[in-house]
């Protein structure tokens, strides 16, 4: 966004340029002051000493602690997504059923697990597996983490499926009925394939949430040996808390940023598809999303640059799902 394209301010004249320069200087001074203070504090505690950072330049720390931890993190996230997707599809379709006795239980399950913190689900699952003697001592932590993540994300994905199907133009359903498709056929051949393409960015974004939530697994009684858990062993070995937490946070940020970029790419791919059939426009006019309380219609996270792009409603769905 260059200075001249924003609708919020004019191209600066001499006075505004002067003011902007003054603000820039003040802001840079504040930033420099904070940076200096941080570095000063770090150096007085000898946390910047090369000996504390050097371990991360050796293969040893990576192969012994970080990579196994990252592997557990990614494994738990992948398993959770693979199980949560079909559960989400079943619950989401269940909420759209014509039969009240299917609709209501699905709604209660979805709303219940969406309202409860994932950490509580994991702690409960762990305790339950211990008491009921499910799994072995080795795989119980993984089971507990996956159970917590599946219950929560299955419910969130159910809302994604529901919203995706509701956002399709009514004409699709009407045309299918007109040519005599049954309910199951309508869902399988017409609605689901279209909705799935629409939901792809939201699903990838949900994966970011899942990866971040795996970090809960190392807390309290869950004892899952994921990436954050390796921090404890590394700091115990090298006494370098600052370096360790910085590196671990960076690994998470890199993994999540890659997923965000994938989500953006799939969204662009989707909006290109939409252009041919004009579906993008129709998506924005359906009122379906409003009922799901997922957000405000027309919210678009590209802000200010109004170059079109994907329709507001779907961006909004994605935006909401980027939430913790």
């Amino acid at each position, binding site marked *: *966004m260059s*200075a001249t394209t924003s*609708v*919020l*301010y004019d191209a*600066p004249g001499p006075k*505004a340029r002067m003011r*902007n320069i003054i*603000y*820039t200087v003040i*802001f*840079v001074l504040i*930033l420099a002051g904070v940076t200096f203070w941080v570095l000063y*504090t770090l150096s007085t*505690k000898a*946390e910047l000493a090369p000996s504390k950072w050097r371990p991360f330049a050796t293969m040893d720390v990576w192969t012994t602690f970080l990579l196994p931890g990252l592997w557990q993190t990614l494994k738990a996230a992948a398993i959770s997504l693979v199980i949560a997707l079909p559960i989400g599809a079943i619950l989401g379709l269940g909420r759209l059923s014509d039969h009240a006795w299917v609709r209501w239980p699905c709604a209660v399950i979805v709303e*219940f697990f969406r*309202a*409860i*913190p*994932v*950490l*509580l689900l994991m*702690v*409960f699952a762990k*305790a339950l597996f*211990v*008491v009921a003697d499910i799994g072995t001592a080795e795989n119980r932590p993984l089971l507990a983490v996956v159970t917590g993540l599946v219950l929560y994300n299955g419910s969130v994905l159910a809302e994604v499926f529901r919203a995706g199907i509701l956002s399709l133009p009514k004409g699709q359903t009407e045309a299918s009925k007109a040519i005599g498709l049954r309910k199951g056929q309508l869902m399988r051949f017409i609605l689901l394939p279209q909705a799935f393409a629409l939901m792809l960015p939201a699903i990838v974004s949900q994966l*970011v949430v899942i*990866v*971040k939530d*795996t*970090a*809960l697994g190392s*807390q*309290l*009684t869950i004892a899952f040996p994921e990436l*954050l858990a390796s921090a404890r062993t590394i*700091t115990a070995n090298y006494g370098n*808390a*600052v370096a360790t*937490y910085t590196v671990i946070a960076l690994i*998470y*940020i890199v993994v999540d*940023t890659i997923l*965000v970029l994938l989500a953006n790419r799939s969204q662009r791919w989707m909006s290109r598809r939409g252009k041919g059939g004009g579906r993008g426009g129709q998506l924005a006019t359906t009122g379906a999303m409003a009922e799901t*309380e*997922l*957000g*405000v219609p*027309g919210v*678009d*996270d*590209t*802000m200010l640059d109004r170059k079109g792009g994907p329709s507001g409603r779907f961006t909004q769905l994605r*935006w*909401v799902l*980027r*939430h*913790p």
Partner: protein
Amino acid sequence: MDFDFLSDPAYDIVGAFLVTIELTILSAIGSLIWGTLLAGMRVSPIPVMRWFGTLYVNIFRNAPLTVLIVATSVVLSDTLGIRLAARTSPSFLADNAFRLAVLGFIVYTSTFVCEAIRSGINTVPTGQAEAARAIGMTFSQNLRIVVMPQALRAVVAPLASVLIALTKNTTVAASIGVAEAALLMSTMVENESNALFSVFVVFAFGFIVLTLPIGLLLGVLAKKVAVKR
């Protein structure tokens, strides 16, 4: 189901939920202020501020909250000696952990508040900002008097979902020993293993009671304040 533990004085369930509420309210206020400032930076005419805002949001939104909260305790407090309570105070450990947790929640949640407000700004029709510029308003006047009041009214619903997420996220404070609901539940499932399901039901119910009214009340408010266009 066996709910005997409710009358056991060893478990202060109401007290634990009060800590959860306290964490939520303080973090929410802090995140709202800092998030609004960040949003202002991200749309400002000053490039350095925009870069800072973008960098800040992209870093802290993509780092797991658990890492941030654990780091406030292990890195800030234990390693660097930055303590948020008086060392001599008898409740030093509890106060310090509580304030560190609030700091961690603000750092994390403000990024979502910032993005919500930024997208709220986008719901304000271009004509509003153009008209403000046409009558000679500066960027900050434009933002303060014309755009923000309309944007904030549009983001009540997204902010409600941020607040609900924050309420649930406060459980992460248990990992640095803040005596809130999740920490108590973790103790109770260990000690009351014969009443596992009832313990879970009580705590689940507690969170439903906390989050449901937020969604309903703010949903009504969102409809009420929405700018009719």
